Every structure is written in C-alpha cells, then in structure tokens.
C-alpha cells in the first residue's frame, strides 16, 4: 500500500501498523465517536437499520474470509448463521446459560458444523462447492424444521432471551445497538488482522492457485478447513446476535436467499477486501430501506403492479444492483473508495 507523500517507514513497527498517519487516526476516532453517539439522535427505524448493518457486517466479514480471501464459495452462509442463532437460543432457554456464555458456544458450534460441511472442499472447488454448500443449507434447515424439533421447536422456533448485563436487560434498541456495534468493531479488527497474517496470506495463495500453493508447502487441507471454521464462527456470532435481537430463533430469520444476499454484499463491496465487506453490508441494508420507502409509492402510481410490488421489487432491485456491479465494476465499492483515498493521498499533485 502506498503511503501519503512525505510519510516514510522508519521502523518495522511503523511498517506493520494499520494506522500510519495522524489524519487516519483522527478520522477513525471521529468515525468511532459518531458511531457510538448515534443512538442519541437517531430514531428507532434508523437504529433498527444500523443494528441490521452491524449484524450483516459481522456475517459479511466471515463470508469474505471464506469466499473473498480463500476462494471457497459458500451458499450455505444463512445455514451457519442459523446454527449459531439456534445454538445460543437453545443454550439460553433450555440449558440456562447466560447470553455471554452462549455466544462463544454458538460461535464455536457454528464453526464446527462449518468444518463438517467444509470437508467436501478438500476434493472439490468452484461450482461443486456451491452445490455442496447449497445442500448444506437444505440439510441443516431440514434438521431444524423436522428432526430436532424437541430442541429447536420446529416450525415455531423458540425464544431467545435478550442479553443481560449487570442485572439490566438490554431491552431497548439503543442498548442492543451498542452491543452489536462493539461486536462489529471487534469482528472488523479480527478480520483485518487475520487476513494480514500468515494465515491470511496462505488463504490468498490458495484462492489464486491452490495447486501452486500446495507445491509451495502450504497445507491446503488444514487451511481450507480453517477458512471454513473462521468464516462460520463469524456467521455463528452474527446469527446469535440476530436471534437475540428478535428475541426469537426461527428458521424464517435465516432464509436461503440471505446466503445469496451475503454473496451480493461481497460483490457490491468488493470481494477479498475487508473495507469492501463493510461497504457492501451498509449498501445492501440501505438498499433494503430504499425499497421499503419506494415500494408503496410505486404500488400507488402503478396500480396494475398491485400488492406484491414490495416483495418483487426488493428482489429485482437487489438483483439488478448485483448484476450492474458484476458488469461495470467487478472490483466493487472498495475500489472506488481506494481511488478517492489515493486522490487525497497525492493531493495537490494528482500525477
């Protein structure tokens, strides 16, 4: 990564620092300050959107490590979120764990389930892996729906109590917002540090050419499974947060189409880029809100479209956005963000 003009690395510590200039630190601090004072001036609708953004960011980071960095396309992400959500709900309701103990267990269990369904990835890749992960979604949702009904409550689901801290229950949207945002910031820091470590470089090597990576001495077997484990741990955390946000875990919270939207977030944001995962999640959730505003207007102005306008428009608009990005900007929003940053880094000399 190029540095701002006039900035030089003088020590190894400077070389590996994430934040190198004072401007970066000031901007980050200002952003964090804004992020954690939001509930003071946002209404409930916007808080809801922000909470959904936070949960999506966590989940998108997981899929980004698995798909964007390691190249293992997963269409079962919603299922791994469901595993996380149901595990923590079951632990809280049936076993009597507190949320804080259930969350890590849920993350770990989602990771282990991810490992099991990641096993086929040792022999297959690309399209075959998509098939395997689609199957994973349907098998997991069948287990939840029909087989483990004593635990999961089947079609009805089961309650997931709101988390409690020092005796106060996080019942308001604002308090849950802080929980989600702290987790999202932690997830971002973890994701950034995973991908710039030895593990992350191994993932990138596997994505770019797995045979060459193996010849270079990277243990593909271990690293592919590790990618599945890490990706699904993130998904488990996101799923658990989602279930406890609605105070109810049910398979309808984790529909199959969500797996598609998480891949879409990576396409829109920029695959294989941590900033991209965040930008994509934000863009997609804002798009949801746009559709909620637009659909009634369209339904009013074009009565022929009728009451199904909102359902169909939200599908079509999101699909169109993914297609437009695939055709015109496959590198995603992160690329545009990089161009803006490069412009200011070189300013006032643009060449």
């Amino acid at each position, binding site marked *: 990564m190029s540095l701002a003009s006039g900035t030089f690395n003088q020590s190894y510590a400077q070389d590996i620092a994430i934040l190198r200039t004072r401007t970066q630190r000031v901007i980050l601090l200002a952003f964090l300050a804004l992020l954690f004072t939001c509930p003071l001036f946002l209404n409930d609708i916007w808080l809801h959107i922000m909470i959904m953004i936070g949960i999506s960011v966590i989940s998108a980071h997981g899929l980004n490590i698995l798909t964007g960095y390691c190249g293992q396309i997963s269409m079962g992400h919603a299922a791994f979120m469901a595993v996380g959500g149901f595990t923590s709900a079951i632990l809280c309701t049936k076993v009597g764990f507190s949320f804080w103990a259930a969350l890590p267990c849920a993350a770990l269990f989602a990771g282990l389930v991810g490992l099991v369904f990641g096993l086929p990835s040792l022999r297959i890749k690309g399209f075959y892996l998509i*098939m395997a992960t689609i199957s994973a979604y349907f*098998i997991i949702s069948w287990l939840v729906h029909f087989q483990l009904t004593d635990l999961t409550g089947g079609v009805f689901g089961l309650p997931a109590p709101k988390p409690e801290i020092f005796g106060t229950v996080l019942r308001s949207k604002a308090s849950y917002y802080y929980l989600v945002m702290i987790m999202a910031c932690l997830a971002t820091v973890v994701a950034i540090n995973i991908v710039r470590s030895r593990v992350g470089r191994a993932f990138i090597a596997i994505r770019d050419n797995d045979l060459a990576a193996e010849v270079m001495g990277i243990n593909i077997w271990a690293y592919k499974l590790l990618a599945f484990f890490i990706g699904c741990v993130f998904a488990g955390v996101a799923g658990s947060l989602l279930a406890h946000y609605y105070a109810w875990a049910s398979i309808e919270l984790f529909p199959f189409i969500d797996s598609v939207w998480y891949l879409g977030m990576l396409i829109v944001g920029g695959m294989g880029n941590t900033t991209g995962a965040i930008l994509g999640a934000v863009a997609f959730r804002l798009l949801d809100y746009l559709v909620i505003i637009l659909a009634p207007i369209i339904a009013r102005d074009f009565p022929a479209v009728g009451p199904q306008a909102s359902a169909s428009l939200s599908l079509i608009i999101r699909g169109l956005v*993914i297609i437009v990005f695939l055709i015109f900007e496959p590198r995603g929003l992160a690329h545009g963000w990089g161009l803006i940053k490069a412009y200011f880094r070189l300013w006032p000399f643009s060449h």
Partner: protein
Amino acid sequence: MTQFLQLGIIGVSLGIVYALIAIGFVIILKCSQAFNIAQGHIVMIGGYIGFTFLVMGGLPLWAALLAAIATAMLMGLLIERLCLRPMVGQPVLAVVMMTIALGFSILEGLAILIWGGQYKTYSGVIPTEPIRLGEIYIPAATVIALILAAIVVAVLMLFFRYAKIGLAMRATAEDEQVAQAAGIRVTTVYALSWIIACVTGVVAGILLGGEAGVSPYLADIGLKAFAVVLLGGLNSIGGAIVAGIMVGVAESMAAAYLDPLTTRGGLATIFPFIIIIIVLVIRPYGLFGTRRIERI
C-alpha cells in the same frame, strides 16, 4: 411388489423431468463453460408461461406448447445478450454469481411481479385419468411427459448430428479457440445454448405444472436437478438422462421406505441434496463425466 413398481413409475416420471432440466444445464456448460444456477428458476418461469397460454389464453395443448417454446427462445436470447455476454472471459465465480443473481432475484422477482407469486394449477387442461396396466396406475401426465421428453431428446440428437449449427456447437464444446479459428461464430453458439436450455427448462416447467401446479417453490426442483447433473457427470448429456431417472426413482423410494424411519419425515424433499453430498465426496466427476486433470 405392486407398490414398488408403482413407486418406480412415479420416480421415472419425476426423473424424466429432472433429466430435461439437467440437459439444459449441461448444454450451457459444454458450450460456454458457464454454470447456470438459474436453471431451476427458468423451469419455474416456464410453468407460469404454460399457465398463461393454457389456462389464461385457453389455447389447445399443442398451440400452447409452441407458443411457450417461442417465448422460451426469446427469454434465452435476452438472458444471454443482456447478462451473460458481458461476462465472457470473466472468472468462473463472477459468471456463477451472475446466474445466481439472475435466478434468485430477477426471475423470482418477475414471477412475483407478473403472476403474483401465487399457486396456480392447470386443472382440467391436461387429462388426469390414469392408464391402468394390471395392478399399476400410470398417470396421464407421466405418459405426456414421456412422449414430450422423447421428442425433445430426439430433436436435440438429430440437431447435434445433422444441423450445421449443431455441429458448430459440438465443435465449440470441444475447443473454443479452434472453433473460432475455423470460422464458427462462438457468440451465436453461446446464444443458441441458452435458447436450447430455456426451451428444455420451459418444457420441464410445463410438465411439472401439469402434474402439481406452479408456485415460486418450483424453483427448488431446479436445485434438486443439480443432484442429477452431478451424478451424471457435468458434461454428459446421456449421463443426465440416466442419472435423472436414478435420482427420481431414489427420491420416490426414499419417500416411501425411508421416511417412516425418521421422526417427522420430509426426507424425500432433501434426499437429492444428500445424493449431492455423497456424490461430491465419493466421485466428484459423476458417473459419466470427464475426470478433471489439473496442471499448474
């Protein structure tokens, strides 16, 4: 024994439809190296198109079929030109994402927008009296499915053997660059492969709609057809037919014999997905597919 045969017949009729869906997928894959995840949604749209012409338009079966096939050709042309052409030369992941977005959001959204996403039946249009053969009943829809599928496969075989453009498609499937050097217009071949896939998909959709009605959930059948594609081998049309019937029979047998063993059933609906996992772990290139050899 009677029950076994009866289940077999139900399985075969399901399997033929699976095979039709899989053939469309295989043709696109062979000609343009694109994995078409949207095939199930093309089938679902096909079911609705059949509903439009048969029930709303009130056309006789043969006219409705011809009209539906014409619509399918237009649909294939549009999909290829607008969505897939810009993706030529892009990485596999991008092309797969394109078909995912196309199927799961655009086609599904259109089905909800145009037909309201409601459950529609063809009641009274396709004959329902079963044909009795000893102890076994063969549903009329199965007979129609068999005849239609036979016609489609025969036309495709003749097309690939004798038509000039059919030969061009086979050449492109063999080696794209050599075909291009020999003066074959590869873009035309791509477009044609999508048109054929849409036609087989729409025919399969009408057959499924005639048996059990149409709803957006029909698209899940397309996902199950991937079990057929994987079992038959990704690039084998004959494999798709054999595997289609195998998966269909396996699914109907699973519904009858394995469901009582699980606590609440529903095994039939996910049995193809279990087949996918087993095939992928044991024999990823399928029964008749080419074994992939990779070099750096």
